[in-house]
């Protein structure tokens, strides 16, 4: 092994803490903290998927919550039919159905919307991705069968081979392993030739085209990969919260995912995880301050965000980067 960079160490430490602490809390009788960590890890997966296109591809998707939501509904809708629609058949193989469905539906959605969205650039891209997400949002709101605005309670979780998702520790284990896989996957992709093209197209698309790269195709591929990965995170989230609602895909949620990535440090491996951690932990800590400070928690939180941006370049991961300037 070559010597590890400072950021490499941080990555390792963060991941080890995430692996060890939450289960310890749970075993120590603090079940709620395991819940918090599960949510955190799931959102981190979504943020990691967003980072692939946002950080490395320069494609700022402001509609990623739609993928989370669709992934969650891919669990919720079959479960709903099983319980209320008498589709018993799907119950026995729910794991085989839910996960591929979530990944497939979101990949397809990414492909279809990506075909249109990727014609635009920059802020236009930001807004058109949001537009599609909002359309999905309102679509789900209008489907009363699945609860509309009220959302849908998932009464039975996905059944998987090695994990019993009704057991909080096993649920967490699955989420954490998924995060590791997601991190590895994104790392592999960005370092590959594909990743180089993606990053090149972020820097100078016209140059990439005259070099001979069809940037549209590469970006679309990355967009689909990211969307599917995020859909998977959505399936986990649906299973975890056992409650899904259109709220999950509201633009605020997309914004939060974006903020996690930027806060942690876009285009860094651990950035999104750091961002998600800080975001969730701060939110939790500040909002549990004694009344009335708790309800005004967004004030210090907002100030912190501003300060981080103003004084730390490249997000939290920038704190730990070896390079001083840039």
């Amino acid at each position, binding site marked *: 092994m070559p010597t590890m960079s400072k950021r490499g160490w941080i990555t390792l430490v963060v991941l080890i803490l995430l692996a060890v602490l939450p289960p310890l809390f749970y075993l120590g009788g603090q079940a709620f903290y395991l819940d918090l960590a599960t949510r955190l890890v799931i959102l981190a997966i979504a943020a990691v998927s967003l980072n692939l296109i946002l950080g490395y591809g320069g494609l700022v998707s402001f509609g990623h919550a739609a993928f989370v939501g669709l992934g969650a509904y891919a669990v919720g809708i079959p479960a709903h039919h099983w319980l209320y629609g008498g589709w018993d058949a799907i119950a026995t193989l729910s794991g085989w159905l839910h996960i591929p469905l979530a990944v497939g539906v979101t990949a397809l959605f990414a492909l279809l919307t990506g075909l249109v969205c990727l014609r635009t650039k920059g802020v236009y891209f930001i807004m058109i991705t949001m537009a599609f997400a909002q359309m999905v949002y309102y679509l789900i709101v209008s489907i009363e069968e699945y609860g509309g605005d009220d959302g849908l309670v998932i009464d039975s979780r996905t059944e998987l081979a090695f994990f019993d998702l009704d057991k909080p520790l096993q649920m967490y284990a699955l989420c954490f392993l998924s995060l590791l896989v997601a991190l590895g996957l994104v790392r*592999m992709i960005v*370092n*590959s030739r594909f990743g180089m093209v993606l990053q090149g197209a972020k820097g*100078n698309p*016209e140059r990439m085209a*005259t070099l001979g*790269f069809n940037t549209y195709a*590469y970006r679309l591929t990355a967009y689909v990969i990211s969307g599917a990965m995020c859909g998977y995170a959505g399936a986990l989230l649906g299973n975890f919260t056992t409650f899904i609602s259109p709220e999950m895909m509201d633009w605020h949620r997309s914004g939060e995912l974006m903020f996690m990535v930027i806060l942690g440090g876009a285009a860094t491996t651990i950035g999104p995880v750091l961002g998600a951690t800080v975001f969730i932990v701060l939110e939790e800590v500040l909002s549990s301050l004694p009344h009335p400070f708790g309800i005004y928690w967004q004030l210090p939180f907002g100030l912190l965000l501003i300060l981080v941006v103003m004084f730390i370049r490249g997000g939290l991961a920038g704190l730990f980067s070896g390079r001083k300037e840039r």
Partner: protein
Amino acid sequence: MTAVLKVEGLNKSFGGIKATDNLNLTVEAGELHAVIGPNGAGKTTMISQLCGTQIPDSGRVLFKGRDITRLAPHRRAHLGITRSYQITSLIMEMSVLDNVALALQAREGHSFRFLRPARSIAHLRDRGRELLARVGLADKADQATVALSHGEHRRMEIAIALASEAELMLLDEPMAGLGTQESLEMVALLKGIKGKHSILLIEHDMDAVFALADRISVLVYGHIIATGSPDEIRGNEAVQHAYLGEE
């Protein structure tokens, strides 16, 4: 000789301006064909139409007999056309070597390859360093591109053009921004690859042009007014008047 590039009756106007006006041009295989002309004559616009970043209003562009007038830029690159930019166009966020390695990677078919880390692909890196050495940037290979000076950026442009090893190179003022010494080195370098590639060279540095070109075309107001050997052009009165000034 066979024509690598044949441009027939190319027209392109922007609003009221005819940037390209019934332009005809042939680049023979292996030839270094220089295009000179006053500022705003339409040289860069011509290159843009040849490499596909702009689409002509009318006329045809033939590459080895194939009509590529409306082909997307990346497809032309696959066929073997590369360009360098007059106004530096690099990927500033990446390292100097990465920029060149990407150009090399582009030649190896599609890049939907997800497994191997690109920075550990030896032949790309080695060849990249070799090219950077040729333009005198060996010691800058691992720096971020932004941190280089203007002249160094200009040299990267050339390294990238060389990396593509394209059959046809469209070079837009490669000497601009280079010091006297570097210009001479560049002339030597181009001499070295001359013959192996067909080159369409745009340059205001007359010493370089006359030292390198097999043929020279003079472009004025979007139209070629003369084509000929360096000596013919030097002697051409219209060219003297429109471009070179009394010498």
